[in-house]
């Protein structure tokens, strides 16, 4: 072992000591967070799989980033570990060992070079600057220096002048990296690992969608999150895990529309609040678009939201809860949960909902309907169509949940199509009629957990009085609430979306479909069906049965873009530069489709609201009814001809 190699090993040891101290200091800050149930043993055991499979799956969507990270992180960890092992005399004297170490550092150097190539000469807008711009140089110095020292050691000290220079580089780069561990880019390494172990939604790694919001106990002294300590400790770890890659801001519909929300910045503001006497000044990524001015100060015991704090309330209310940021996050951070926790405090404790959102919440409280309309009028859309009532039938095979869209004239046409199809397929179904209350989705997303829980309990009580096998609904928001969020209040139901149900009817031959051959159709995935519930195949299968040309938008399936209608965003109505549905409609038009197929009353309303020359908007149920009527018409004509 050369003396230079020994010094490299000691440098790595010093690095580990510095990084360990700083990381521990940061980790101690997490203790201010609230308690959370975490299965540490299972999490630790699952860590390699979560990292190598689940995280890689997301990172791998950007092949360059995946290769870059594999080389830089893999090379850095292996090279440093080997250099440390070199302190063991039996190993340190083997030349081949140092040759392997040099190889690992070479890989890390290549990764560092890729980091540099991505950031220089022009840094993409989604990546943060500041300390992050220093990262490629530190990586290159440490890895390059390490490589030279190890190479020199593998040759028995033949290259000692180069080795000396290498050691200097390695020391500077290595300590530079280690000093970044608590607040700089390297924080994601240890916080990310801890986040994967103690993830608040472990189901996400077990193949579940795990998208239901956690219920809030309404007797807790402070409802929702006002200060950093109101978040559970594993949520705080999650904020620290952010590497500021900016994939969330690219996916965020509110960001695209110029509303003052940037998920990356939000998570950074939350992470910054953890530090006593915190300020948001070091953030060097893209700002909140059209940012409303805030003081930008915070810390433990200080409020997070407010003009005099870190985050402006308009930022919170811009979110459509579409989960696109969560879907894109390679560190698997739960942005939407954080926003809902903050909203809960604003709504339940301060009553600080956006002015236009106060009225729907009030009407929900006293009339169980956000617009204060009579519950009995929900079935008015079906005038002239037989609509069996649960109250008179006592039970049915299928309970048809109508949802809020039923009151709306445009969506009433969709529901009429669905009801007609159910009659044609001779489905045994019934509706609750005046007994159906709002499902509570709007209240819950606006942070009114008390209102949601009251509605959920009342609906569960109503549903318990009737006999049915499955609930059918055309509203993905109701589907998500009934299927995933009522469980916590004792309501477990098999809920099926109308696209899946119609697909089932067509597959079993209960619906005869004709061909809509001339139509070019693109399908817009509702967030609450695709991303929240993973149902992206059934609607496409159903569309393909209609014999149409199906075109895909650039963003589709689980990575689809929101229409702007979720999370109470239409009633919060935060001003931006563009409208989200206009952006989405432009994406639909880019496919050259003549029809945008939708499967949600919110999407239908938002996309129908786009003005100017644009494709027609039809719910899949309407398209299926057209196809069924075409199939009916064809044999009827031949029958007449024979007669």
């Amino acid at each position: 072992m050369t003396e230079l190699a020994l010094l490299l090993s000691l440098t790595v040891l010093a690095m580990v000591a510095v990084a360990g101290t700083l990381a521990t200091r940061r980790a101690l800050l997490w203790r201010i967070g609230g308690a959370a149930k975490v299965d540490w043993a299972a999490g630790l055991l699952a860590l390699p799989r979560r990292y190598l499979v689940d995280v890689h799956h997301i990172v791998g969507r950007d092949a360059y980033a995946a290769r870059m990270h594999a080389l830089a992180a893999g090379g850095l960890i292996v090279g440093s570990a080997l250099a440390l092992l070199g302190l063991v005399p039996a190993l340190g004297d083997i030349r081949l060992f140092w040759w392997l170490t040099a190889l690992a550092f070479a890989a890390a150097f290549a990764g560092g070079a890729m980091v540099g190539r991505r950031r220089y000469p022009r840094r993409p807008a989604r990546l943060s600057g500041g300390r992050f711009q220093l990262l490629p140089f530190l990586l290159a110095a440490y890895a390059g220096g390490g490589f030279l020292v190890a190479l020199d050691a593998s040759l028995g000290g033949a290259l000692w002048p180069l080795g000396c220079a290498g050691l200097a580089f390695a020391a500077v780069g290595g300590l530079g990296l280690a000093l970044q561990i608590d607040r700089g880019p390297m924080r994601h390494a240890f916080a990310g690992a801890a986040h994967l172990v103690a993830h608040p939604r472990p189901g996400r790694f077990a193949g579940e969608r795990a998208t239901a919001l956690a219920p809030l106990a309404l007797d807790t002294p402070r409802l929702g999150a006002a200060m950093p300590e109101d978040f559970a400790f594993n949520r705080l770890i999650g904020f620290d895990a952010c590497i500021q890659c900016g994939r969330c801001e690219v996916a965020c519909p509110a960001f695209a529309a110029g509303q003052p929300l940037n998920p990356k910045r939000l998570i950074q503001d939350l992470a910054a609040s953890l530090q006593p006497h915190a300020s948001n000044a070091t953030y060097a990524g893209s700002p909140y678009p059209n940012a409303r001015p805030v003081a930008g100060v915070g810390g433990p015991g200080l409020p997070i939201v407010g003009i005099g704090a870190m985050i402006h309330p308009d930022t919170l209310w811009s979110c459509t809860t579409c989960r696109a940021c969560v879907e894109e996050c390679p560190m698997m951070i739960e942005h939407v949960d954080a926003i809902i926790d903050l909203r809960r405090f604003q709504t339940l404790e301060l009553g600080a909902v956006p002015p236009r959102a106060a009225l729907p919440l009030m009407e929900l409280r006293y009339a169980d309907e956000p617009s204060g309309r009579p519950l009995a009028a929900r079935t008015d859309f079906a005038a002239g169509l037989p609509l069996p009532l649960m109250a008179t039938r006592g039970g049915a095979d299928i309970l048809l949940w109508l949802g809020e869209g039923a009151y709306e004239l445009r969506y009433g046409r969709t529901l009429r199509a669905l009801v007609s199809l159910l009659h044609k397929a001779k489905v045994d179904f019934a509706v609750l009629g005046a007994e159906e209350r709002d499902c509570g989705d709007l209240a819950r997303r606006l942070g009114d957990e008390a209102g949601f829980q009251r509605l959920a309990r009342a609906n569960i009580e109503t549903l318990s009085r009737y006999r049915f096998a499955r609930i059918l609904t055309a509203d993905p928001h109701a589907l998500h609430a009934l299927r995933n969020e009522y469980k916590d209040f004792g309501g477990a139901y098999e809920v099926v979306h109308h696209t899946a149900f119609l697909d089932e009817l067509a597959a079993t031959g209960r619906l005869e479909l004709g061909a809509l051959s001339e139509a070019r159709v693109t399908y817009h995935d509702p967030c609450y069906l695709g991303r929240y519930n993973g149902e992206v195949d059934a609607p496409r299968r159903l569309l393909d049965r209609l014999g149409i040309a199906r075109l895909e938008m650039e963003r589709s399936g689980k990575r689809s873009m929101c229409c702007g209608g979720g999370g109470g965003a239409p009633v919060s109505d935060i001003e931006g530069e563009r409208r989200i549905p206009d952006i989405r409609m432009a994406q639909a038009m880019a496919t050259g489709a003549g029809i945008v197929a939708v499967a949600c009353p919110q999407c239908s309303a938002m996309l129908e609201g786009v003005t100017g020359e644009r494709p027609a908007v039809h719910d899949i149920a309407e398209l299926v009814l057209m196809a069924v009527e075409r199939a009916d018409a064809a044999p009827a004509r031949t029958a007449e001809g024979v007669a």
Partner: protein
Amino acid sequence: MRIAVLLSAGRHPVSGRPAPVPVELQALGLALGLSDEVTGLHAGPDIGPLRDALGHGLPRLIHLASEAEDDPVPGLAAALASGGFDLVLAGRAGQGGEDSGLLPYALARALGLPIVADAVALAPGAAPGTLIVEQALARGARRRLVIRLPAVVTVHPAAPAPAPFAFAAARRGIVDVQAGPSAAEPARPASEERPYRPRPKLIARAGAGASAAERLKAATESASGGGRLLVAPSPEEAAGEILQHLRALGLLPGR
């Protein structure tokens, strides 16, 4: 400034469920804009969802428990007289009960206080013990008055919306239940109850062949009661005008 806000047992106009009366919550909003010393007062058998007023920012609610058929006026008058309030705020009319809007007048008479109707904004006056009231008049007109306190003021639905409901504030707020004096309501004339049906608006017809502008004018101005607008008239002139108007309506013996 000590303010009492009268809260009545209302019903949601569509669902028919017990609910606070929106205009009374607006009165509460105006009160909280003036002072922190605001007390809610309700006389009736059950507090029900009036608790929710606490969620709209009311710090304290006094419930004068009484029977449903009791007259609320004596109990409220006693509580208001002993409470030493500078200002009593009420809604223009209840919602879902008799909705006659007479209770504030009956209270003002019982307390011997002046009453000003249909406030949409309140502000403390320049002189101590005075209040600036912005009053809503027909067709969007506003009138600013300065009144001497104590007084009873009713609030118009055009007043600003109340602070949104906060569940935790409703949970924290205090309801103080006191026994209200039992007083049988004076016998009412027998009346008939019918579901409310909005009356069709009477639209004046413009003559045949009238221009679009004339028809629009006829349609939009039909609701106006006519009369003359006098700006800052002398008291004598104003009194003369009122007498003349009453005479024209046949309400005063002609001279």
